């Protein structure tokens, strides 16, 4: 039986140790390459990596060394780029030998090339090219050794890729955590109208300039609007906090949903004359609930509809289904795309891409809080271009 000799085993062991024990990928490569050179002569080595971040999958040079002959020729020397391209296409080990090498001066233009693919278990990540000026051609043993080392190098690169991905994920995670941080988000939300109030008032207070009457009115109106917004925000935040606290005391009485909704509709129509509402109620029996809070649910739904689906008809339907009273609240606005739909009830979630600052971001969150406090359920269905329907189930 042919056994692998001890020397070879010790050598392979030392190579494996380098990869296993060196953290920094560049140091790993330097050490591996230096060790490899004792048994496998080459002049230049270049490692090309597919840029996984770039949309265009461009090829970057990740590592290069000139260790032997011909390193004075610098940037004119051969780095096996064409060979690398071939290897990246074929995913195969590739050898290229010069056709005819006669004169020493011509050697640099006719190198021996050995190209090997770098692979992880799932994908081809790059190519490694050994360049040798002058013979002998690469032997089978050398190709095997090169292949082995290339696999170790793949490992080192894979580790590096994972490290970077991990770092990116961690940054993303901490950003998300910041967003979820209620206190941080609240201060940010509250500071936005404050920023305008401060900005516009200090503008009017400037002593070095005089503002004409129209501009003064414009700025003062902005200050007033932003103060209202601030007030609205504070109210919402407090309401939300009240709903969340364990000491919440709801005023539970028999209530008629159609009556509540009609009241809210009247109030809303007074503020927005163009609102058109179609209300129908089947089996309109009273349920147990908090009058004021349920009214708030519908006020928020109206508020949303007016902001996001202005001038479209609002259809409200109340119906008893089993043990529940189901209320559907539909508009005919632009609708919400599937990717945002799961998040609209989240605190401060606003569908991105909506122009301007609309809403406090708390409206639907509060709706959900109130409905849940009633042991009910609320969700939304929507098709882009076909409007949105909110469905509320409350125990009957």
């Amino acid at each position, binding site marked *: 039986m042919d056994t692998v000799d001890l020397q070879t085993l010790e050598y392979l062991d030392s190579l494996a140790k380098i990869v296993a024990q060196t953290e920094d990928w560049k140091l790993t490569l330097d050490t591996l390459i230096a060790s490899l050179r004792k048994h496998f002569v080459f002049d230049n080595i270049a490692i090309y990596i597919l840029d996984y971040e770039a949309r265009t999958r*461009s090829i970057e040079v990740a590592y290069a060394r000139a260790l032997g002959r011909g390193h004075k020729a610098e*940037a004119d020397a051969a780095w096996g780029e064409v060979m690398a391209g071939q290897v990246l296409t074929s995913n195969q080990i590739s050898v290229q030998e010069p056709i005819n090498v006669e004169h020493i001066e011509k050697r640099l233009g006719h190198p021996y090339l050995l190209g090997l693919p770098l692979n992880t278990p799932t994908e081809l990540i790059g190519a490694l090219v050994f360049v040798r000026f002058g013979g002998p051609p690469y032997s089978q043993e050398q190709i095997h050794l090169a292949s082995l080392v290339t696999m170790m190098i793949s490992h080192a690169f894979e580790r590096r890729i994972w490290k970077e991905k991990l770092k990116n994920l961690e940054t993303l995670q901490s950003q998300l955590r910041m967003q979820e941080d209620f206190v*941080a988000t609240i201060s940010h939300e509250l500071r936005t109208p*404050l920023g*305008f109030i401060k*900005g516009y008032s200090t*503008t009017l207070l400037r002593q070095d300039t005089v503002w004409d009457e129209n501009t003064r009115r414009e700025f003062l109106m902005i200050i007033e609007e932003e103060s209202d917004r601030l007030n609205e925000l504070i109210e919402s935040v407090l309401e939300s906090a009240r709903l969340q606290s364990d000491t919440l005391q709801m005023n539970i009485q028999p209530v008629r949903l159609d009556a509540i909704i009609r009241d809210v509709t009247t109030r809303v129509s007074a503020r927005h004359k163009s609102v058109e509402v179609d209300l129908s109620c089947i089996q309109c029996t009273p349920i147990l609930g908090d009058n004021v809070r349920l009214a708030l649910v519908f006020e928020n739904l109206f508020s949303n509809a007016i902001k996001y689906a202005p001038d479209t008809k609002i259809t409200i339907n109340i119906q008893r289904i089993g043990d529940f009273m189901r209320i559907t609240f539909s508009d005919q606005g632009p609708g919400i795309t599937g990717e945002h739909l799961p998040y609209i009830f989240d605190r401060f979630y606003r569908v991105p891409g909506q122009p301007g600052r609309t809403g406090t971001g708390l409206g639907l969150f509060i709706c959900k809080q109130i409905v849940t406090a009633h042991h009910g359920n609320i969700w939304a269905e929507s098709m882009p271009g076909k409007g949105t329907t909110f469905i509320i189930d409350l125990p009957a």
Partner: protein
Amino acid sequence: MSKRILIVDDEPRYLRLLEANLRTDGYDVITAQDGLQAIEVFSSNPVDLILLDIMMPKLDGFATCQRIREFSNVPIIVLTAKGEERDRVRGLDLGADDYLVKPFSATELLARVRAVFRRAQVSADVGQARYFIHGNLRIDFARAEVWRDEQTVSLSATEYRLLLQFSHNVGRILTAEDLLVSVWGPEYRTDKEILWVSIARLRQKLEDEPHSPKHIATRSGLGYLMPPMEEE
């Protein structure tokens, strides 16, 4: 001639606030509502200072700042939200000259703008020229595109950054170390081979004759340079 300021903010109410104050303080004002628009506007108009909001859709403030710094030293003041120290630090690290925290007072805004103008060094090289031309080579900084004889050239991110170094230093010899540190980072200071390979690749892509390069020339023992073209 009054100085021109570019205001970039996705919130129209801030644009109005900033514009009103800056105009009455004697500045000329142009606006943009997102990062991409900012870069387009900046590349086609002379601008002396940029007020840049950090929170913006499409290209955010940081990325915009970085992109502008790729081809211009124009003074930049970033607008950040209070309490976000990391935003201020990041803005400054990416090349902003100062920051202004929202909510701010009008007088504070004007004082900072004045201060940044005082500090800014007017350099003859600082152009916001959108295009760079060198023989048959053309770089469109705003789009980060490179053209050779009216054909686009596909460069890797590193190759583009390397080319920028040369285009910003026409006629000046850059040492290998200079290039390695500025394009790859300080830990690559002695990795000369990676520079050689990259220059070789760049020449393959940009030069009519890679072995007699006209765009990126070697000065033996000294470094590399982009020689000035006789005719532009």
